[in-house]
């Protein structure tokens, strides 16, 4: 099967006229795995196919084209191929795209998380597949995540301790996905939360899809004291909550496992919570699925993954995309 690159870092299958996570003028269908900027087609007026939640997010983030919503698990026909979306566990609406045609089957993971994010539809995959195209953002054995139970304890502990000590907790997290996941995990604390405007407008989609993200309003500088604050780290430099003298800051990202990030960001707490799977889950997943061929994308270290897959006698190569360092 021919795999071409298209758009910023999307894929195009010319034999099937199918594009994934990128625009192609000849595509009969363009599938979007999830609504993070590096996976949405740059062409804002294309016709795309995705889950309803992904389409909701896309519209809120400026997409103006037409669309076909597809529920998870439902087979749709595109030319001679059948396409099914599987929940990827990365963020709400995130899907792995499974493609079957006479030549065999292929699974494109987009971004995925095993075990799945508690603020997503979970994770499911086909039992077997011929070709696997997988992301490998955290493809080094220095990355092994704590369980969600441990992470939840870290997050709630940080927030409660800060509030008890008279400090306003600030969680640094990406606007879409991480922010709402944290809110979901903190909801049982029943403490008012304030989220930065760019993330706030995306919150209602979570609630419409039945995910409890607690008691929240949009960030307001004058009244933010003693609330739980959630913001991307870039807003800190622009004066976010700079009127408060007593704050404690937690950086919530997979990259928080790297010690150097602490001094680079000057934060009080590093919470290594990622919406990607870790190295060990990645190798385990490949082994379990045992495809004939694995293509590795979205990683600075394809060689390491290939080295481990070789040991499992799985053939693999690197599909060279630009790396997006936003977790």
């Amino acid at each position: 099967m021919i795999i071409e690159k298209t758009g910023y870092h999307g894929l195009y299958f010319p034999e099937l006229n199918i594009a994934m996570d990128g625009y192609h003028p000849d595509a009969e269908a363009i599938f979007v795995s999830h609504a993070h900027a590096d996976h949405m087609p740059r062409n804002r007026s294309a016709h795309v196919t995705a889950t309803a939640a992904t389409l909701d997010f896309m519209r809120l983030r400026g997409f103006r084209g037409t669309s076909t919503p597809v529920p998870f698990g439902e087979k749709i026909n595109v030319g001679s191929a059948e396409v099914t979306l599987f929940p990827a566990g990365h963020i709400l609406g995130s899907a792995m795209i499974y493609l079957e045609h006479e030549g065999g089957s292929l699974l494109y993971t987009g971004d995925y998380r095993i075990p799945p994010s508690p603020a997503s539809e979970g994770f499911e995959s086909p039992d077997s597949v011929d070709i696997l195209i997988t992301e490998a953002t955290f493809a080094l054995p220095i990355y092994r995540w704590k369980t969600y139970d441990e992470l939840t304890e870290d997050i709630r502990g940080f927030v409660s301790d800060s509030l008890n000590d008279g400090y306003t907790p600030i969680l640094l997290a990406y606007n879409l996905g991480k922010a709402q996941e944290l809110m979901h995990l903190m909801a049982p604390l029943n403490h008012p939360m304030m989220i930065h405007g760019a993330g706030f407008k995306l919150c209602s989609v979570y609630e419409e899809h039945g995910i409890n993200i607690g008691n929240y309003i949009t960030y307001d500088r004058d009244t933010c004291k003693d609330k739980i604050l959630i913001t991307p780290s870039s807003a800190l430099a622009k004066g976010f909550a700079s009127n408060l003298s007593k704050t404690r800051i937690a950086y919530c990202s997979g990259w928080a496992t790297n010690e150097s990030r602490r001094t680079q960001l000057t934060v009080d707490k590093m919470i290594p919570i990622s919406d990607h799977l870790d190295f060990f889950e990645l190798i385990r997943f490949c082994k379990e699925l045992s495809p004939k061929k694995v293509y590795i994308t979205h990683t600075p270290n394809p060689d390491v993954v290939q080295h481990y897959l070789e040991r499992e006698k799985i053939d693999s190569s690197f599909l060279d995309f630009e790396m997006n360092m936003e977790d």
Partner: protein
Amino acid sequence: MTIQFRTYCETLQQIRQTRGNNAKTRIFAECLKSIERDEELQLAAQFIGEGAFSDLSGKRTSVGSRTSGVAAATFCEIDYDLVFKPCRTATGSSSETISRLMENIPAAIEKRSLVEIGLTDIQELFDRLNRAKSRTDKEQILWESWGMMTPVEIKFFIRMLSQGSLRIGFETKSVVSAIAQAFDQDPEEVRYAHMITGSLGKTALLARQNRLDDATFRLFHPLAFMLASPIESRKIDNLHDYIAEEKFDGMRAQVHVKGDQVKLFSRDLNDITSSFPDIVNFFRQKEIPPTVLDGEICLFKENTIQPFQLLQKRMGVKKPSQKVLQDFPVLFIPFDILYADSEPVFHLTLNERRSLLEKLSDDYHLPITNQFEIHHIDKIETMFTRAIEHGNEGLMLKNRLSIYEYGQRRKSWLKVKKPGGSIDTVMMYAHAGSGKRGGTFSDFTLGVSVKDDERYEEEFIPIGKAYGGYSDQELKELNQRIKELTVERYGPTLGLKPGIIVELEYDDIQVNKRTKAGYTLRFPRFRAIRKDLGSSDVNTLKDVEKLYREKMAQQRSAQSEHLSFLYKRNDSNK
């Protein structure tokens, strides 16, 4: 109760995760207080501030980052080049990488079982590593050690081994404060005892035993050097308290003399006696009373201080040949005295020390720096220009009422210097940073143009590597730009298309035959990122050569013609 290494490392980790110096100091003071045995107290203070061995012991474990990396890869059953190295690039730290692999990799988890080890056991392991000769022996000891430790212990164990910083934001000054706090002593007295003993361990013990008065200076044990701050960095409102001296283009050294026993120490407190037999002989012939002097080793030839580039022929040469000694003669020019006539004098004011130094210089015909009065701030500029004309590096301003503040960089001494110059360069490579800059590209190789240079085929060649001078914001923007310009990747290094032009400031230009350009810059750093310039505006190698020739040809006046230092040699055979 004896303190476990595990408990100790958990305390270190807690200090690291605590913000604010007072809070950190409190944690460590509590830790010190909880230790009962003297030996363990000494080690607890030493490990955090000095590492595996005390600064005074001169001992090293000689376990490099490659040895520990390879040993860790074997322990974890992973490939060193294929797996370990990319992990180290991602974290920017060898010790962090090892500790995380130990935590994550099943094969490594299986090999580790928790054994209770005390601080004295750790000392024993460090000693064994120090005695081990071969890499294989060292590896065996590392494996044995790691087999008993948690990942946090392993991380700090490795950082102690390399005698570097533990990277917990808690340096010597804070350790001294914690000792004072733990044993309810005056911080100034603790600091003084540390200056005398040169050992945090001994200081902690003396503090606990209420015997800080016992700390006495010992000849032939180096005292940490007093350092100067750049004048730009300090606000000075009492300039009339300062005197000026010219700053020589040499190498700082401390000389200890007693009878015909002479020792020299470099600024990092290493014994450099064997490199300078001529200075040793000089002092042997003088027969001065027991003395410690602080000063500058200069290449002194034809009655003139020669450029630093020539002094380099003597630096690091363990046993210089007769020919080297003849071609590159050196002179030690004292500017301070720390021990006079068998008495420590570093607690006296500079004025008082100066009188002692002048008397010694008079009596035994030693060279001595000249001091100049600063009557008015405007005079500094004139004096600076004159120092440069003399061929010197710049000026030192010293507060005459200050004591010798060992190991500190405060405002009692100020240096007035001017950058050697700056050139416009193109960014050729970006390297992944390490330590606190891990995970970003923070070190850059910069190049000059050889487009029209018949000796070269390429367009640009490297001239220096800079890792400072930019702001955090600029570094962020650079990292963004670099992504767009990357054409090649060699492990942690990115090859870039010409596109980023940097005005590079340096202290000096040196000949270096091992580089492609034949020249290197001393202490290159960013002055500005020149968005207004393009790659055709970059300076050429020929420009660099011209700057070098100008620098070497610069007129230097002979010692007899000016007064940057005094040296009466006519009757030096006294």
